[in-house]
């Protein structure tokens, strides 16, 4: 299966009540790429997916699959595979019936349908489940059947709407890596919507972060995390510590609780860093504060350190040391992990 590029040009979609779900969106999904659309609810991510699917028609703008303009084509003629949030399996058909539904429409002979059906059941690891009723399946099995059904007719692109949201945490983790392997193995162009940053980072080749119907940032997961385009992206993807700068000193920047190293020229108003980049020191550090909270999270501990700012600092520590409540904590930070953001 070779992928098709998806291109949105100036797509805009408003709803009948006047709210604009998507503002003039330009987007290219490369052939074979997996794009994650990430954002809080109501940011337009689902609408974007539905524009690509053909379930919504843009008010302005065009949608291309490869070189063909599919803007006017309804979903049934776009040749897309779609996995819905609650899977939308047909309850009146058994597992095999669901999988061959699209194949019947394409006029495959019963022999070809059965062959393709068993191929897909094997692909998603449900070999013996063809005759099962949908009601007998667990959540994870339903998700796999939905995926098999979407892939059966060899669609040009695969679209997934919150594919893992309906599952419990442990299963989600496992199916996430299965899905990742599957998408990479098939090389199919795929777009999925999620509000879970971990899912977006793990599965997406690139992530499109959306905020109120606009693109906040479109970049690789690493770039999104390390060089977030603005404060919204930075706070949505991972946790963030903000340091309002009090004044520029000869060595760095004076902030509540101490002084940060700074090499740049213009002193910014606020500098930021990630919780895992603050190191707990024995005695000397750039910042000092009082421990106000400590949460054991297995591989790491999350510490809350009050340095006299509005919010306590978040510190992710992997040294396994248990501190006394209220202990004085010294924190060190490297200058290269500090960054600034456009608000």
């Amino acid at each position, binding site marked *: 299966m070779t992928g098709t590029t998806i291109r949105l040009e100036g797509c805009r979609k408003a709803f009948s009540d006047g709210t604009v779900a998507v503002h003039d969106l330009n987007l290219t999904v490369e052939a074979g790429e997996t794009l994650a659309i990430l954002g809080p609810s109501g940011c337009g991510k689902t609408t974007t997916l539905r524009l690509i*699917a053909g*379930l919504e028609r843009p008010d302005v703008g065009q949608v291309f699959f490869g070189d063909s303009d599919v803007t006017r084509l*309804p*979903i*049934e*003629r776009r*040749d*897309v*595979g*779609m996995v*819905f949030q*609650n899977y*939308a*399996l*047909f*309850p*009146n058909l058994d597992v095999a019936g669901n999988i061959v*539904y*699209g194949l019947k*429409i*394409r006029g495959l002979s019963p022999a070809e349908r059965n062959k393709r059906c068993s191929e897909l059941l094997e692909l998603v690891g449900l070999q013996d489940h063809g005759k099962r*009723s949908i*009601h*007998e399946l667990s959540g994870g099995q339903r998700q796999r059947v939905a995926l098999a*059904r*979407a892939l059966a*007719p060899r669609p040009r692109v695969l*679209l997934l709407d919150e594919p893992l949201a309906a599952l419990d945490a442990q299963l989600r983790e496992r199916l996430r890596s299965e899905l990742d392997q599957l998408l990479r193995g098939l090389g199919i162009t795929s777009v999925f919507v999620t509000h879970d940053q971990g899912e977006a980072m793990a599965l997406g080749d690139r992530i499109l972060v959306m905020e109120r119907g606009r693109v906040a940032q479109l970049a690789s997961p690493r770039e999104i995390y390390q060089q977030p385009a603005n404060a919204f992206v930075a706070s949505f993807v991972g946790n963030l510590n903000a340091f309002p700068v009090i004044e520029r000193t000869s060595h760095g920047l004076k902030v509540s609780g101490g002084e940060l190293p700074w090499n740049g020229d213009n002193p910014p108003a606020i500098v930021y860093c990630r919780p895992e980049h603050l190191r707990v020191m024995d005695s000397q550090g750039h910042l000092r504060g009082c421990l106000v909270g400590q949460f054991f999270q297995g591989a790491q501990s999350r510490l809350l350190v009050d340095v006299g700012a509005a919010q306590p600092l978040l510190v992710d520590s992997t040294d396994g040391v248990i501190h006394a409540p209220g202990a004085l904590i010294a924190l060190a930070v490297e200058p290269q992990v500090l960054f600034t953001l456009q608000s």
Partner: protein
Amino acid sequence: MKRSTLFVGQLAFTLLVCAFMLVPVLMSLLAGLTRNYFQGISSGLTFDWLVQVWQAYAPTVWLSLQLAAACALCVCVVGVPAAYALVRMNNRFSRAFEELMVLPVAMPGLASALALLLTYGQFGGFRSSWLFILVGHVLFTLPFLVRPVMAVMQRQHLPVLEEAAASLGAGPFRRFFSVVVPNCQAGILAGVLMVVTLSLGEFNLTWMLHTPLTKTLPVGLADSYASARLEVASAYTLIFLLMIVPLLIALQAISARLSRGEKR
């Protein structure tokens, strides 16, 4: 196990109410099998009345069955797409239409029948055929199918299922027959059950719309009450019950099985 006096009292009351309603039915059935009702059971039991009724009124039985089947079919063909359209539109117009559809039920049957007669009475061929009664029955029973079908459609997340079917390449027609109809079978069946029962027993409209050659069972029943011996009328009732009770039980069983399947 010790029962409270309250329980015993309630049980007695329930049984009394049941008896109050069932005894007349049993009396009537018995009357149809008694040689001479005025002399009582002592005159002996007989199937003669049943045979006599069958000889006189068999055509009304067949016509009623034919009407009920045709009515169920027509109501399905009209009602299921109508329910689908109403559920999908779900605006002020569709709600008004839903109310309008119930009007023939709220109105006295005689009035609707009169309206039909005034409008279509002059078309002789149509007026004298059984199809004229069919029109009345369809009008009257339509909401009894549309309502339960709509209720099931609203429960079933049909829009998402339809989107899923569309994503697999199914056009509107195919979606309707492969997704919508199979997934509201329980509602359709419940509706058909109601429609068949109502059509078999419908009297008001039918009495106005029938001709001597298009008599249904309930009309024939009225006829026999008015003109024949009490035993004949009772035997006729017996035939009606023999016809409708197994039908009700069968349909009830099917819908029970379907709703069990849904709950799994």
